[in-house]
């Protein structure tokens, strides 16, 4: 008999029931001890709490677009405040329950996404989840939604109204000018001086240098410069003065060659036209400057005309021209370069005066009518701006509840 058997026989023989109860009590406490030990094990930090999902997901066909675009908006996850959310993932599917593929993601704090990969005419379903980079929240779902292209951009309706009013203003004054009405245009000193400048060059026996800017033919300022070149070329043809036109754009060069050639033919001096005087230099900005400066220093023109779009090279050109003693007339719509031309040149056409030059020099009634129409529309713009400023100011001061005018002027 083993020691354990002897113990059991003693317990059950001498103590009997008491011993049995004691044994049962001891044994029954052990599971409790085990359970108590387990109850001490898991702490709050070990419990995984899911990330709060975004809510109120709303999908709509993106308005005023070319199609294939759906715009999603949602309410941010409440876990953004705890810093658990890093990104929102956007999923799309053609089915409400399956087949979702991630189409994009946005950073924390963003509550909108534009999906540009939808198929027009086909319904799409969307889900958005919040994620910390690894775990994802439950999704917010919306759909079906169908994307489609629009034929009119409603965000630009105000621009269309303005354009129509502008066209009517131009057409009205052009018709008035054609009808013989006298239209007053204020004096532009820079343009009046072109005649004197050409005369000066003729007397000195020196050439005129015409620089039409560094922009291409698609820039309206370049076209305005070409219009002026035509008038200047007529004068130089009449006075038999050499006209040098270096270009930074080959297409502009081709157009200017035709313009100058036509101008010389018009005044009956086609033989005086020299194609080599209207030439291409280079497209590189400062290489062009170096080339033109070289022409200025070697040829020492009596008159230099800067007309068109200019950039950082404007002051280098104008100062070199001033150093060789030329009379300089500039005209540009580049607001940042105007101060340089104003300080270095004798006369400067500021902004829209460059565009008025063609009408001013030719004095054609139709062109003058267009100029008056432009001025009339500028007056309308001024009145609208004044109303908008008053409206915004009253709203800012609290006199009115809101500003109804400024939102009408915003364009997409």
């Amino acid at each position, binding site marked *: 008999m083993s020691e354990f058997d002897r113990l059991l026989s003693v317990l059950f023989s001498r103590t009997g029931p008491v011993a049995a109860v004691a044994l049962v009590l001891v044994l029954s406490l052990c599971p409790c001890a085990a359970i108590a030990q387990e109850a001490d094990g898991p702490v709050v930090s070990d419990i995984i709490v899911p990330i709060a999902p975004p809510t109120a997901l709303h999908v709509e066909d993106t308005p005023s*677009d*070319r*199609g294939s675009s759906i715009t999603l908006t949602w309410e941010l996850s409440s876990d953004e405040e705890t810093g658990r959310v890093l990104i929102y993932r956007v999923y799309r599917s053609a089915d409400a329950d399956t087949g979702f593929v991630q189409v994009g993601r946005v950073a924390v704090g963003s509550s909108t996404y534009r999906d540009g990969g939808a198929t027009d005419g086909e319904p799409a379903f969307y889900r958005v989840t919040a994620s910390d980079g690894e775990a994802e929240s439950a999704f917010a779902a919306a759909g079906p939604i169908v994307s489609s*292209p*629009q*034929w*009119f*951009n409603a965000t*630009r309706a105000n*621009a269309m109204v303005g*354009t129509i009013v*502008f*066209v009517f203003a131009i057409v009205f004054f052009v018709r008035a000018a054609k009808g013989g009405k006298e239209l007053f245009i204020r004096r532009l000193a820079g343009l009046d001086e072109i005649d004197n400048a050409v005369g000066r060059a003729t007397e000195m026996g020196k050439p005129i240098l015409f620089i039409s800017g560094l922009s*291409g033919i*698609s820039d*309206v*300022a370049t*076209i305005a410069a*070409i*219009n002026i070149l*035509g008038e200047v070329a*007529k004068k130089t043809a009449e006075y038999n003065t050499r006209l040098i036109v270096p270009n930074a*754009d*080959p*297409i502009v*060069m*081709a157009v200017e060659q035709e*313009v100058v050639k*036509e*101008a010389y033919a*018009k005044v009956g001096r086609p033989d005086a036209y020299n194609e*080599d005087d209207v*030439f*291409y*230099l*280079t*497209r590189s900005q*400062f*290489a062009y*400057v170096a080339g033109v400066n070289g022409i200025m220093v070697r040829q020492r023109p009596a008159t230099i005309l800067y007309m068109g779009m200019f950039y*950082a090279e404007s*002051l*280098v050109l104008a*100062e070199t021209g001033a150093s060789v003693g030329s009379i300089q007339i500039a005209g540009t719509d580049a*607001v940042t370069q105007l101060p*340089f031309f104003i*300080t*270095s040149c004798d006369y400067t056409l500021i*902004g*829209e005066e*460059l*565009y*008025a030059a063609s009408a001013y020099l030719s004095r054609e009634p139709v*062109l003058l009518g*267009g*100029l008056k129409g*432009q001025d009339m*529309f*500028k007056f309308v*713009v001024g009145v609208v701006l004044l109303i908008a400023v008053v409206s915004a100011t009253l709203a800012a001061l609290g006199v009115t509840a809101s500003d109804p005018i400024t939102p009408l002027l915003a364009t997409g």
Partner: protein
Amino acid sequence: MRRQLPLTLCFIAGVFMAVQYFIPHWRVQDVYDRFLTWLQIIFAFAFLLGTVSLVKVHYHKIRNRAADRGFSWVVLAGLGSMIGLGFFAPGHNDPGSPFDMMFQNVQVPIEATMFSLLAFYIASAAFRAFRARTLEATLLLIAACIVMLGRVPIGDLISERIPEATRWILTVPNLAAKRGIMIGVGLGMMATALKIVLGIERAWMGGGD
């Protein structure tokens, strides 16, 4: 026909470009994108025009033994060498190729040198322009001094009001003038473009009716 065809093309293209701004539909935008691609192709061919013009002008100067024909030799030599390196040298115009080395070590430093002249020209222009001959010139001089001082640390050392005055000058009267000019420029551009599209302005075709 010689005049009518370009005027008609200009009208059609101009109206389309204006209308496409208000129509976002892909059918219209695809045509617009195609227009832009065509423009790039035309520009690429235009470079050929420019190169031919450049070579012709300088060839004539050399042939006629013009006084400054030395510069023409330099231009033609540079043009020829870069074309040769770009087409025939190993690596063509890849980084590290002879073409790229010439561009990075010759053209770029020369252009930077020309740009750096701007600083000296600003000084010379300021010396000539900032003189108190008239009321406007005096105002320009005072404003320029305040703005220049306010943009460097010494202005703040002299007085904290100088940078404040600089900010006010740049953000109130200067910005107001800029905006006024830009509104006028915008309207001028629209009017000129409209006159070209409608055929009222025809000087760009070579003058005449």
